[in-house]
């Protein structure tokens, strides 16, 4: 019998994902679950599901879960965390949820340096509702509600969350990663784990923005979508660490 070299993390249930073929949510779920497993925090982790494609995350993680209203996950997480600071509390939100309808909750939980972990999946489109323009849709990007391409003169520019939050004193850790190739997935794993580790160490607000794809609503094959991400999204949303208060303090 051969050695097991890869298996499903313990923190994922056996439920089959509802995500479309080629969707990167599956990868990101796995990375989150691996981080929870490796830190041994499954029994005290409470997740907050949001509204969007990731609305059903409560079916996939084995930890306790609460499903929040659209955009309100950081506020719900604040309540859960304040109730028992020993719990490890994370939200899993998409771009419409976090960067549009929930902007206030995002900004102020960051400003408070709320000791929570936010996984922010940015795929530049509303997936669940069928492909409408997101706050992070790129200039010129064609969606159901920007059929002639996003016109920055009438609907403005995409929001760069990491850059924006990095201007606040509050947050401890902000990093943007991507899941379009093996190297980037490995970096994403490291960032996600760090975002949980920070909370375990009471270091405060950690947000990892994961640039990802939506082949279905982008109207591309999964492979093509990865290319499109690399060529179009990454120039607008550069990968990297936007804030790491503790690393900065150590460097001083």
């Amino acid at each position, binding site marked *: 019998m051969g050695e097991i070299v890869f298996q499903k993390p313990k923190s994922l249930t056996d439920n089959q994902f509802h995500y479309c073929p080629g969707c990167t949510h599956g990868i990101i779920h796995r990375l989150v679950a691996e981080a929870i497993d490796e830190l041994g925090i499954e029994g005290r982790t409470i997740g907050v599901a949001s509204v969007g494609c990731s609305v059903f995350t409560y079916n996939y993680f084995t930890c*306790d*879960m*609460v499903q929040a209203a659209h955009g*309100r996950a950081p*506020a*719900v*997480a604040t*309540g*859960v965390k304040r109730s028992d600071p020993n719990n490890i509390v994370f939200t899993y939100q998409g771009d419409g949820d976090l960067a549009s309808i929930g902007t*206030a909750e995002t900004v102020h939980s960051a400003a408070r340096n709320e000791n929570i972990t936010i996984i922010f999946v940015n795929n530049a489109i509303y997936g669940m509702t069928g492909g409408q323009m997101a706050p992070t849709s790129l200039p010129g990007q064609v969606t159901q509600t920007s059929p002639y391409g996003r016109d920055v003169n009438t609907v403005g520019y995409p929001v760069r969350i990491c850059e924006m939050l990095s201007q606040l004193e509050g947050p401890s850790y902000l990093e943007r990663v991507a899941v379009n190739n093996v190297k980037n997935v490995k970096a994403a794993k490291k960032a996600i784990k760090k975002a949980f580790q920070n909370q375990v160490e009471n270091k405060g607000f950690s947000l990892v923005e994961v640039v990802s794809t939506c082949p279905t609503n982008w109207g591309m094959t999964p492979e093509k979508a990865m290319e499109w991400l690399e060529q179009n999204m990454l120039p607008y949303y550069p990968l990297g660490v936007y804030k790491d208060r503790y690393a900065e303090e150590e460097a001083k």
Partner: protein
Amino acid sequence: MADKVLMKGNEAIAEAAIKAGCMYYFGYPITPQTEVAAYMAKRMPKIGGTFLQAESEIAAINMCIGVASTGKRVMTSSSSPGISLKAEGISYMAGCDLPALIVNVQRGGPGLGGIQPSQSDYYQATRGGGHGDYHLFVVAPASVQEMVSLTAHAFNVAEKYRVPAMLLADGTLGQMMEPVVIDEVEIEEHDKSWALTGTKCEREHNVINSLSMLPEELEQWNIDRYERYAKMEKEEPMWEEYMMEDADICVVAFGIASRVSRNAIKAAREKGVKVGMIRPITLWPFPKEVLLASTDKVKAYVTVELNMGQMAEDVELATHCRRPILKANRAGGCIPSPEQVLAQIEAANELGGEQ
């Protein structure tokens, strides 16, 4: 027994909540309820509790959802426009079967309205206020002492039935001071096996959720919830009867309107009019049975409200429209005068032989 102290209604609610075991408060400033938040800001840090001024009413109610999900007692308070903002979260609470206490110290509306006292959120409170089929347990205190007792009671009932509760006050009750005793209260223990406490890797995960993509499943959740509501309608109505023994005319009024009505009832009695009052203490469930029973002896009703006549509709429903109902209303932050109420009582009495 604790000492009698002179306290504002808003402060009394806050202290009563703490006595009832509520260690978490999230809110946002708005007149005329800000003293609740100010009191909590002062007290919570001293007793190891949490006070957090949220970035919005919306965030505040969602923070409450977070704490309620973990099975602990939590409260928010606001005034009318702020409650509208919280309506989304309140609907989610109802859909997730989460107990919590929401305090509404009402002011005139709609829109930004005014800051003077009102009862114009009656529909919003008794019909749920947000989207979906649901009710809140709604209590309407009429004195500072009752603000204390009903705060504690509302927490207990909310947990018993797993429903959000609302304490519906108004600017007058919030701002006025009366002597009050804040004693230790009974904190009922109800099942909390549903709460998110971390699985400790010892049990299946708990999920707090209001979403279902299966209509039949979602319908069943609604049916189950309505079974609890039916039980509440049977067991939880509260009311006070005042001078009803021989009453021909019945005033129906809650909260501050019932206080004004008392003056009018006394004045009417001095003039020989046999008038009494049924004061609903719970607005949902509404004390329907006592009102229906009263139709056998009462010849007319006078509803007194600080709105355009919202509760009057519930009185019509409860009494099956068997008797005429006259209204004594003021809106927009105005309060009916005892003279106005007296005039309607006398007019109702004139209706005499129409039975």
